């Protein structure tokens, strides 16, 4: 082979042409969903409708309600499946597939189901289907990530086609709230049978459901290219009022800056979420705006109560009082946060605003430290995972605690190692959050503070207080709502005094949304309500 001038030139031209041709001849299939110019809206629905594209920071892990426990998965699932009961904007329970429900006895619930509901595959929705779904959640072979929400169910009885009774082992007040959690999404019975058949053949549980999810909701599954996008199309045979949008695409765009580019170019309509530090930029961009909504999510800095010196209540109180929460909210979250008085988010029914948290008081903090025998302070560590805002929070806490003589070392851990370490109690202090996913106050407190849940299940502060355990047990077993809230008030007061964590703030959910998107609603549980959304031309 000789390198003549001509052959070099020829090679160069071939390379360039090849590059162009190959690039131009991109896969046409890829072209029409994850990547096409979705800024254009089609409006076959007669003025309202359109194809909505949501740029999400993460892909769904599984489309089987029992497959995984994460918001991006549930966010897609909630548009394919429905639950018996739904949460509204105020985190109050509303009828879903169940028309009504009541507690016949303290431990016996009756649900009356909607009639005339069919799944996307034509299967009929009835009480047997509900039973089948609930039994699947509880099946140890399926190993549902959220089976614990229903562990108290003793018996499920089908009374007639559209009436169902659930008996619990002990009186369990939050049961309806748990039935509003996406894990209890109703899956087509035929699909469940197919899934079990596949399990017999050695397939993983959920593998069939995950491939082709079938529910009853106003959208139905169209296509999922993992890591790229999930697309749903409108279900025109919906039992209630049809959705307006023709289709919804949940597109994966991890990088904050790229999501903003997506919405400003019109390639996507919604950036979910929007980072607080990007709010200014979005506000200044034409055609897009910031959407804010309250949330049931708490940001906290926990103490390991089994570790010295945090086994001393006075030390925990002192550290809590030495932290000016506004510095964190204003400096790191750009003001998008509500200062927290306790661990129960203000959106949750049962939150008591008469309870004052531990206020910022450096002098009192120093006194308490001295009382506990640490007048010269001490050295400790604070753990955080690699989320930008959490790292900043840890650094801020470090500098604030320096003022009362506490020397804090910040350690940043990768998520898996972080979960592992905090579950094993290897930490001193740590920065984390908690979403009260069911919207019931029980879920805001029981997993976080009951001694039954030490470590892994949520109680990473290793709170182990008998009095608190009793209150939390009593709270979940008391049927009367007012009585319950009284018990929880006591628990919240106790938690302020015990101070197992610094409750920094309740998050505010932020989205970047294009102006032509109308009717959007984000629930405090972070899920997007898309039923009434349309794209205005």
């Amino acid at each position, binding site marked *: 082979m000789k390198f003549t001038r001509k052959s070099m030139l020829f090679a160069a031209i071939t390379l360039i042409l090849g590059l162009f041709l190959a690039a131009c001849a*991109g896969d046409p299939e*890829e072209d029409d969903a994850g990547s096409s110019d979705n800024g254009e809206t089609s409006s076959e629905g007669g003025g309202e409708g359109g194809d909505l594209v949501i740029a999400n920071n993460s892909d769904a*892990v599984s489309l089987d309600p029992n497959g995984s426990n994460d918001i991006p998965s549930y966010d897609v699932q909630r548009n394919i499946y429905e639950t018996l009961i739904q949460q509204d904007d105020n985190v109050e329970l509303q009828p879903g597939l169940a028309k009504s429900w009541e507690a016949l006895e303290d431990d016996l619930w009756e649900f009356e189901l909607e009639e005339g509901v069919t799944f996307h595959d034509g299967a009929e929705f009835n009480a047997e289907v509900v039973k089948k779904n609930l039994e699947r959640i509880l099946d140890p072979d399926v190993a549902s990530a959220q089976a614990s929400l229903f562990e108290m169910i003793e018996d499920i009885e089908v009374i007639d086609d559209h009436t169902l009774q659930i008996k619990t082992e002990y009186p369990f007040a939050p049961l309806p709230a748990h039935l509003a959690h996406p894990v209890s999404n109703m899956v087509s019975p035929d699909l469940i049978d197919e899934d079990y058949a596949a399990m017999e053949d050695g397939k993983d549980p959920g593998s069939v459901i995950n491939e082709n999810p079938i529910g009853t909701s106003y959208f139905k599954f169209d296509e999922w290219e993992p890591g790229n996008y999930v697309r749903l199309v409108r279900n025109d045979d919906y039992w209630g009022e049809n959705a307006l949008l023709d289709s919804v695409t949940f597109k994966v765009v991890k990088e904050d800056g*790229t999501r903003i580019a997506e919405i400003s170019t019109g390639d996507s309509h919604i950036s979910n979420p929007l980072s607080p530090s990007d709010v200014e930029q979005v506000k200044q961009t034409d055609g897009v705006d910031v959407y804010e909504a309250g949330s049931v999510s708490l940001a906290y800095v926990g103490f390991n109560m089994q570790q010295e010196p945090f086994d001393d209540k006075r030390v925990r109180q002192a550290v809590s009082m030495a932290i000016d929460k506004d510095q964190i909210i204003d400096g790191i979250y750009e003001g998008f946060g509500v200062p927290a008085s306790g661990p129960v988010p203000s959106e949750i029914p049962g939150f008591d605003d008469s309870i004052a948290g531990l206020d910022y008081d450096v002098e009192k903090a120093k006194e308490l430290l001295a009382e506990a025998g640490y007048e010269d302070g001490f050295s400790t560590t604070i753990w955080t995972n690699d989320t930008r805002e959490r790292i900043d929070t840890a650094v801020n806490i470090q500098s604030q605690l320096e003022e009362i003589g506490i020397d804090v070392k910040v350690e940043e851990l990768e998520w*898996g190692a972080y979960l592992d370490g905090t579950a094993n109690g290897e930490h001193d202090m740590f920065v984390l959050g*908690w979403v009260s996913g069911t919207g019931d106050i029980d879920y805001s407190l029981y997993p976080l503070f009951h001694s039954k849940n030490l470590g892994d*299940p949520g109680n990473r502060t290793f709170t182990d207080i008998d009095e608190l355990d009793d209150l939390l047990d009593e709270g979940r077993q008391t049927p009367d709502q007012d009585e319950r809230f009284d018990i929880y008030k006591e628990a919240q007061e106790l938690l302020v005094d015990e101070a197992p964590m610094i409750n920094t703030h309740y998050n505010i959910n932020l989205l970047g949304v294009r102006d032509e998107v109308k009717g959007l609603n984000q629930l405090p549980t972070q899920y997007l309500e898309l039923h009434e959304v349309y794209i205005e031309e």
Partner: protein
Amino acid sequence: MFTFIIRRLLQTIPVLIGVSILVFSLMHLIPGDPAQIMAGESAPEEQVENIRERLGLNESLPVQYGKFITNAVQGDLGSSVRSGRAVTKEIGGRFWVTVELALYSTILSVFLGLIAGIVSAVRQYSFSDVAIMIVALFGLSMPNFWLGLMLIQWFAMGIDLPSWIPFIDSTAWFKPSGWGSFSQVVLPVITLGTAGAAIVARMTRSSMLDVIDEDYIRTARAKGAKERSVIYRHALKNALIPVVTVVGLQFGALLGGTILVETVFAINGMGTLIVDSIQARDFPVVQGTILVVSLLFVFVNLIVDISYNFLNKRIDLD
């Protein structure tokens, strides 16, 4: 040549076994339990135990490895612990996306780098030499995720141009994300190709300068060969050997190393898959993906070795 290829292919077997053992042990050495990550922040212990059981994580490590390798040689890389999909399926389309991305970027960097390097070497210490080397230094030191974000800002979101410029009013020419169409490919390829081009340019320059001082170049000139012929036939061909080596290694590195660019441009490739799977401790996917990448890496290096023979007949492969 043929025996050389066969021998090299056989050599890949121990390499792959080594890689698989290494990856397998590393994944199990780092803290973090896939079952716990799957179950989420709030799952009772027995739930986590159920998942662990289902995933076969309760068995001893040698047993787990044995199962993995027995299935792998039969083309079954297992299934993802996260999604339940077959690993081969998870890798599927992403493989070609990353290969395309790496290939186009390499082509771009070779093309730009060679031209810049030759011009620089031939006109050593001239203005163009200094200018090219300064630009190359920038190209090399620029973090590519930053360059990617800037390119998105300039050419996807676009800059509004003043009205006296005819025909165009904004530079929003390309798409900020995705992969497939021409308007999606341009920005990531430029982002990824820039650093490569800079390396190739510097490499070509220094390698050319070495060669140009050789006796046989002087001889070629002395016998009256045209300057073009001297540069391209005599000098460049010999100077290319280290360049080809670097390009081969770079291409290999790109296969697993495009993660930042994939993240910035929301491209669904292998880099993202590897990192996501490591974060979720999705052992089968990590193992499978790295096996595939190493296989490709070995293959690329084989091609590089063969190409030596084309560049310089004296290099004997056998």
